[in-house]
């Protein structure tokens, strides 16, 4: 409650003259007896606090103000989350309902805030990747890539070809696993329970391949400034090509199960519509933006890594509704599979990291032989490497949109400021305008197709 207790008392008793008139002791006691239970009742209500909803008059929907409410005009404020089956973690939606219709909605965030950006300032550049990888825990490799790219821009190093192609393949595999997870949770949010398990099933296969290559299923810490942590293991081609086939079979199944399903279409077509202009105003990127008919994909528009040397299409649709966002993510998986196949075919030989003793650690065997290697190893893992002073911004296309990393260096081994532009955070803003005037069931579909990852929103 933003009101003080005294103001509250005044409101309840309707006494605007304040405490001046309350000289009589008996009257005070009598007043207390009335007020106390009322205060208790009010204090039990969920306070909006600083999270107050916008006044009803300010809401603009479908080009006009919110219509007069029917009946007695009573609405109900309902808190969806932070503990709720379909708020994807700890998102809290404050929704004012008129019957089943959402009058206005407001996302409340911060329940997963762990101060990761601040933590990043206390970690060396070598340790930094372990931190950023935990932000968007569904596509950790994109985070690592953007952080490593930013550091390399400051260091001004040129990566070997193999490192570039390895990074591209890993990030695309990760995009596949992320979109598969979306298919799973989106299906579940609409009530198609088995879809959840189909999505998880294929995602698990992709994670298995990532585990073969990086050693971990999630939070890999594999893409590091200066290259990668290790070279590709034996037999990686068979594993990667095998999972490509499994994923394609899975996507064909989902397509059959949902895309033409009349119930699925009636739940998603025309629901949660957003336009390109609105996306621009809210700096929304990724599949949400592409669903409005604007083919903006950093992999094509501002190619990084070797995306200009592989053949793939940017998937975009025109309607900007939940159905389009579902379809875009479905077909983007196939494009990613295409890229991964090309990476396997064209994977160059050579080194997987920069041969600069100040940036990348020496091979394990060298430490036993060379004093210098031991010193480099020790220095690198205790105080890290020094980065020339300056600031930089790097961006890549994560499965959720443009993920950026802003780094400021003062020439020491730790960044002065690290900021990550998490696409989920910006995409979350689209939820309120999409929801207003829709039904509760649509609200769930809208949250789901915006695909927010709360770890990235709160950082």
């Amino acid at each position, binding site marked *: 409650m933003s009101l003080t207790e005294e103001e509250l008392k005044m409101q309840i008793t309707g006494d605007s003259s304040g405490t001046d008139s309350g000289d009589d002791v008996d009257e005070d006691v009598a007043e207390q007896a009335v007020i106390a239970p009322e205060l208790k009742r009010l204090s039990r209500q969920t306070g909006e606090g600083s999270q107050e909803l916008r006044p009803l008059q300010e809401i603009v929907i*479908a*080009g*006009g103000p919110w*219509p*007069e409410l029917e009946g007695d005009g009573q609405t*109900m404020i*309902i808190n969806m989350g932070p503990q*709720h*089956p*379909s708020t994807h973690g700890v998102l809290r939606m404050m929704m004012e*309902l008129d*019957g*089943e219709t959402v009058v206005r909605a407001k996302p409340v965030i911060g329940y997963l805030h762990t101060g990761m950006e601040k933590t990043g300032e206390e970690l060396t550049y070598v340790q930094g990747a372990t931190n950023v990888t935990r932000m968007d825990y569904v596509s950790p490799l994109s985070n690592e890539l953007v952080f490593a790219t930013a550091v390399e821009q400051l260091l001004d190093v040129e990566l070997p070809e193999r490192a570039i192609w390895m990074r591209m393949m890993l990030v695309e595999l990760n995009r596949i696993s992320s979109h598969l997870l979306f298919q799973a949770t989106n*299906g*579940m*949010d*609409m*009530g*198609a*329970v*088995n*879809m959840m*398990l*189909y999505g998880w*099933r294929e995602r698990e296969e992709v994670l298995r391949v990532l585990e073969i290559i990086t050693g971990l299923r999630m939070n890999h810490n594999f893409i590091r400034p200066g290259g990668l942590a290790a070279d590709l293991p034996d037999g990686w081609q068979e594993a990667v090509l095998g999972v490509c086939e499994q994923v394609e079979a899975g996507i064909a199944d989902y397509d059959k*199960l*949902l895309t033409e*399903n009349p*119930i*699925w279409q*009636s*739940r998603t077509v025309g629901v949660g519509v957003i336009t390109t202009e609105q996306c621009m105003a809210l700096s929304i990127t990724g599949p949400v933006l592409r669903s409005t008919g604007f083919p903006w994909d950093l992999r094509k528009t501002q190619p990084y890594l070797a995306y200009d040397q592989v053949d793939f299409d940017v998937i975009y649709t025109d309607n900007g509704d939940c159905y389009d966002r579902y379809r875009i993510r479905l077909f983007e998986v196939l494009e990613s599979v295409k890229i991964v196949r090309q990476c396997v075919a064209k994977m160059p030989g050579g080194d997987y990291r920069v041969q600069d003793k100040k940036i990348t650690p020496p091979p394990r065997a060298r430490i036993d032989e060379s004093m210098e290697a031991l010193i480099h190893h020790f220095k690198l893992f205790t105080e890290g490497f020094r980065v020339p002073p300056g600031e930089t911004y790097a961006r890549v296309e994560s499965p959720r949109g443009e993920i950026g990393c802003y780094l400021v260096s003062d020439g020491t081994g730790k960044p002065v400021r690290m900021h990550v532009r998490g696409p989920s955070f910006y995409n979350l803003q689209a939820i309120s305008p999409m929801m207003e005037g829709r*039904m*509760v*069931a*649509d*609200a*769930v579909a809208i949250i789901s197709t915006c695909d927010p990852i709360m770890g990235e929103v709160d950082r």
Partner: protein
Amino acid sequence: MMLGAGDPLLSGKIDLTVVLIVIGKTVAVFAFLLVAVMLYIWFMRKVIADMASRVGPDTAGPWGILQSLADGIKLFFKEQSVPDSADRRVFFLAPYISLMTAFLAFSIIPIGGQVSIAGHQTYLQLADLPIGILFLLAMSGLGLYGVMLAGWSSGSKYPLLGSVRASAQMLSYEAAFGLAIVGVLVQAGTLSTRAIVDKQAWTGVGSLGTWYVIPAFVAFVIFLISAIAETNHPPFDLVEAEQELVGGFHTEYTGIRFAIFYLAEFMNLITMSAIAVTLFLGGPAGPSLGFLSATGAVNTWLMPVFWFVAKVMVLLFGTVWLRASLPRLRYDQLMDLGWKWLIELAFIWVMVSGVIIVGRNEGWNLIAVVPLSLLGGLGILGVLRASMPNRSELVEEIL
């Protein structure tokens, strides 16, 4: 009017044996339904697991068959919390309303044929009420109170939304449900479930044509859809819609009271499948084993029960399939489907089949009369349609 007027057991003198037989049948049906629910939950979980490439329950008993029992025991001993703001008396009462009506509705189902117990002839059916089907409608209508009162008395917002949805959904589908049943009743000419089953009795493969699924096919389809909606089964499970309303009407229920709702829900599902079998699929009718005596225990006791259970199983498998694969409808779409399609279709069907039956009795020229009645029905439908407000126009008017 006597309870079970059609049952030969009660037509003679009522002595201690008769009372004992009735009590025995009651206990047997009670146990049958409980065991059926237990096995159905296990079956459902196993089949869904298989459809989702999982193993499913496999620890409690062979193939995990005792899983539901284990869950029941666990829920029985769990702490039961009651929200501060709940209306306690109604809150405690609501689950039992659901359970009671679910049990009672099953009592009119003919499970088998006529058998002889201790020298008395009787039906394998708890009660053969002359108003059988009306009793079913009454019970499924009352069952709504359990769900509605549970949500209302919880004193919490999600259950309230769930119970509002429940009352609207069950009331609107009750109409389509009832009309679909009328589609059979006009053909059978009786309300007694036993008499309806007798009209579909097995006399050879040709008697398949007397099963009302064929002459009343449209009614069968309407019945299936509205029965699924009536039992709040996916894809019409808006009442509990986990992803939207957390648990819907039973969000605040814990322990054994939650288990009772769960039990009642699946009992209703089994009852609805059994009713569908009774009305449309011949009930216990089916070929008996020709090489055994027609009056022996196998052919009088076992085979009818076998056919009944087998048909119910087929329908129940269908419900599991729906549960596994379909997304959920939205509230307004559900209402549209019920009011704008099913009820009208059922009305036209009742009208046409009524005309056919009356026409047959009166010797009318069916070729002329049936299309006429169909046209009349469609005409009325058109008038109704035209007078319905269009949702998008309504929105435009408001804005």
